[in-house]
């Protein structure tokens, strides 16, 4: 049996490992479009911060890890999938055949369609290559404009600041991390950033970028403009599905999959940032593009590839943890609440503390927080476990900080 995994991110690598554990003899090929060994995007901010070297971003550290696992690595991008003949075609024209295929090709940073986005000193912040470019250009004293105050944008603020740059963030939404936090938390995050010397512009947009002499002029929607030495674009990502046109595989925002993470073609599965998997909270299919989901997908898809769809994916809880220059925020599930739901909130603006629990009847369905890190994982346990809260619902309504107790009491009684 030849298992072929396309994409060497966390989802693809976990899939390879899972297959290897289940089948010692299978042939496993890992096709990677990048020239580096498999690395993690999550580690890029720490590379930028110079907390780790490039090697510190690698998914697996032993140089011979993949060959020891008997996983063959092919460093070529896949340009086409020929599902009727069970073949993939590589950028160099080579054709490889598979028995079962997993598409874990991830996502790519998108750039807004504005003039000047292709200029020399305008970069995304997504790949290791992007990070190298930013590291080289974000030098002390330089002016940097960061487009987008989403997850990626926020997570690199600290490293940029540490590099001694003058930083302006331009966010199109009305607040920071609009897809992760509500107005209250977004505003707190903004004032936190401002207190650290970062200029934050929300409800603002870059309309064009022009090269002038050595530098750049960034024009804004409100007709003002900013001078910059470097513009970093962190405005979002999209699934890497372009190469699947005419492959016969159903695609939408990402690759459409069923509850086994299987595509419409029987022997082709998809996982991670490219898969339009099930969201646990609202049972809709969409691309979450987060690390825990990528890993979960990789594992489940691999098991189903080896053991013929024995494992149902009941959906992944969307969740994020974000460290914005030391202020740690989290969001889980339906943090924005549900119709007729209830909420329990504590806010201490002066100390940047916030916790917001969202309930649907007797169940916790979403959480967002600022400044809370201890035992935070139980939020996933409570949401995903559909833990009936009973008396603890009222107690959490009175004091949302009693999450851990609620979890323990409920889990022990259900264990």
């Amino acid at each position, binding site marked *: 049996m030849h298992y072929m995994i396309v994409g060497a991110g966390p989802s693809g690598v976990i899939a390879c490992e899972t297959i290897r554990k289940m089948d010692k003899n299978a042939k496993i090929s890992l096709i990677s479009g990048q020239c580096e060994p498999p690395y993690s995007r999550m580690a890029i901010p720490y590379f930028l911060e110079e907390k780790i070297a490039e090697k510190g971003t690698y998914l697996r550290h032993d140089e011979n890890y993949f060959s020891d696992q008997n996983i063959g690595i092919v460093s070529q991008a896949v340009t086409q999938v020929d599902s009727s003949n069970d073949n993939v075609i590589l950028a160099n024209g080579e054709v490889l055949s598979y028995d079962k295929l997993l598409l874990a090709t991830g996502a790519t940073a998108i750039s807004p369609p504005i003039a000047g986005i292709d200029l020399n000193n305008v970069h995304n912040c997504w790949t290791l290559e992007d990070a190298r470019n930013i590291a080289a250009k974000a030098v002390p004293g330089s002016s940097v404009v960061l487009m987008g105050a989403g997850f990626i944008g926020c997570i690199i603020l600290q490293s940029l600041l540490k590099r001694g740059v003058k930083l302006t963030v331009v966010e199109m939404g009305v607040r920071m991390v609009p897809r992760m936090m509500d107005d209250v938390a977004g505003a707190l995050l903004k004032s936190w950033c401002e207190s650290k010397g970062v200029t934050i512009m929300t409800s603002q947009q870059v309309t064009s970028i022009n090269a002038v002499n050595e530098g750049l002029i960034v024009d804004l929607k409100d007709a003002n403009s900013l001078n910059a030495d470097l513009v970093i674009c962190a405005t979002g990502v999209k699934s890497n599905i372009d190469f699947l046109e005419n492959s016969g595989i159903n695609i939408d925002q990402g690759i459409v999959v069923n509850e086994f993470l299987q595509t419409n073609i029987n022997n082709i599965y998809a996982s991670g940032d490219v898969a339009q998997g099930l969201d646990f909270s609202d049972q809709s299919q969409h691309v979450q593009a987060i690390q825990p989901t990528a890993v979960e997908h990789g594992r489940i898809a691999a098991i189903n590839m080896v053991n013929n769809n024995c494992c149902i994916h009941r959906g992944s809880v969307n969740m994020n943890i974000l460290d914005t220059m030391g202020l740690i925020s989290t969001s889980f599930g339906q943090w924005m609440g549900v119709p007729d739901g209830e909420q329990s909130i504590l806010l201490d603006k002066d100390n940047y503390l916030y916790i917001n629990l969202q309930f649907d009847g007797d169940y916790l369905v979403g959480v967002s927080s600022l400044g809370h890190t201890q035992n935070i994982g139980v939020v996933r346990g409570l949401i995903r476990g559909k833990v009936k809260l009973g008396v603890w619902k009222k107690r959490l309504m009175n004091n949302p900080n*009693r999450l851990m107790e609620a979890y323990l009491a409920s889990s022990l009684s259900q264990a």
Partner: protein
Amino acid sequence: MSWAGKLLRVNLTNGEITSEMLNEQWKNDYLGARGLASKYLSEEIDPACDPLSPENKMIMATGPLTGTMAATGGRYVVVTKGPLTNCIACSNSGGFIGAEMKNAGWDMVIFEGKSPTPVYLYIENDQVELIAADDIWGTSVWHTDEWLHNKHQDPLLRIAAVGRTAENGCFYAGIVNDLHRAAGRSGVGTVMASKNLKAVAIRGTLGVGNLADPEGFMKAVNEGKAALAENPVTGQGLPAYGTQVLMNVINEIGALPTNNMKDVQFDGAHAISGEAMHEPRKSDGRPNLTTNAACFGCTIACGRISTIDQGHFSVENKSQYWGNSGGLEYEAAWALGADNGVDDLDALTYVNFVCNEEGFDPITFGATVAAAMEMYEDGDLTIEQTGGIAFNFGSAEALTKGAEWVAAGEGFGKDLALGSKRLCEKYGRPELSMTVKGQEFPAYDPRGIQGIGLNYATSNRGACHVRGYTVASEVLGIPEKTDPLTAEGKPGLVKAFQDATGAVDSAGLCLFTTFAWSLDNIAPQIEAACGGGWTAERLAETGERIWNLERDFNLKAGITSADDTLPERLRKEAAKTGPAKGIVSKVEEMMPEYYELRGWDSDGVPTDETRSRLGLKD
């Protein structure tokens, strides 16, 4: 070492907060907690000052072992001039806040002056601030605790607070920490509230270390823990029954003060005993006691966690008292029960909860109700004066109503909030106040246990059992049995217990370890933690130095040898029943020998020789 080496000075008058290095010499002379804080207080205030004026200071202090793994190493003390006694007050508490203070990097906090408006002190390591407490002023300890936990969004915040009683000027308000542990005696909470300080909230994450000999410390700690586990009192009796293990024992030997110390045995003793707390209630089949509980680092775990029968009259329609909370300890069970002739375990538990909730001392409260009951039965108080409720001995209703009135500061509660000395004086019966230096007796009758009577009479904070717990020897035979009915040899025994206790209280340890430990067990732990040559002898001498320092303070505050005595009842009215039948306290007989052993002159003043031997100032 093992000390954090720093203290916080909080000037409430002007809001200034400063950090100081701990005085090196003083910590070597006075060790920590009770000793060291008493030294600072003695140096910094005029002992003659009004305890409720801004001139008084209040010190919260830990010992060198507080916050370490030494068994029971979680104690902290509050030292100030007490309003109940006008003497130096040192009230000691367990729970968790002491260790938290140390973990935040502070050995002690000195509060001075008076805040113009209500505030609380928030400490998160070296971030310290005074924050407005208007929202919690006028509320209970329990409400304050919940409010602060919510406000700071931190379940692990440790909180010590005063309740409404302290704000209302009740003379025996305590400072309650961790909901149901308290620096309960002598009115230290009243001092805190007089400074407009509602609470202290601490979060420490720095860690306690800096041990002189880490390996030696862990060895000494483990040996100490093993000794506690093997000892029948600390290994079995206290975990199973708490201090309530004593109720039946003390009643048997005829030393359980009953009905304001008219009697020495109580018919209802069993009904309010530790054994009874284990027995299923008739109404719901559950026992009063849910579990035992430990303070920080304590391997004994004598604490009681209890519930009240939800059908009991005291908690009808009051669901806030239906859950578990800190249950009865022996002193409280005695003061609220036997001393009032009340044998209703649920009523006592309820009043105990209210004492924790609103921050007042159940010993003084119970004894004050007892005095009121005697005056009521004697006709000195009318039913109009007692709020329309008959204050007869045995009335659980009078007891529970009295507690509610004191908590709210209303009606007859205002009288009860005075403490028995002031109450009895007010109604013309001063001889009915069972107090020394204004503080009520604990649960051991000096007629049936002679040594403890001498300890009461000489205790520097007024009548107190935990200044020299000779009950250990006279009743339990620890470290060796002495005859409770004889005065012979007791002055020496009392002095030895008082001095050793001074050292234990100053180390940051709980006195209950001494059922199993002598200073020989404690010295190696302190030495390994602190270095500098701490031996059992030096600890005893340190205790003696502390005792004399406190005595000096009191003398300057106006105390004389005439105050070193017991109420006439105990000296003149013989015990009517039990082994002590026909016996009175021989405190006057013992006093001269005690003074001599202390190195004091016949007026109870330390001689020059004593001062110079202990390195005390003139």
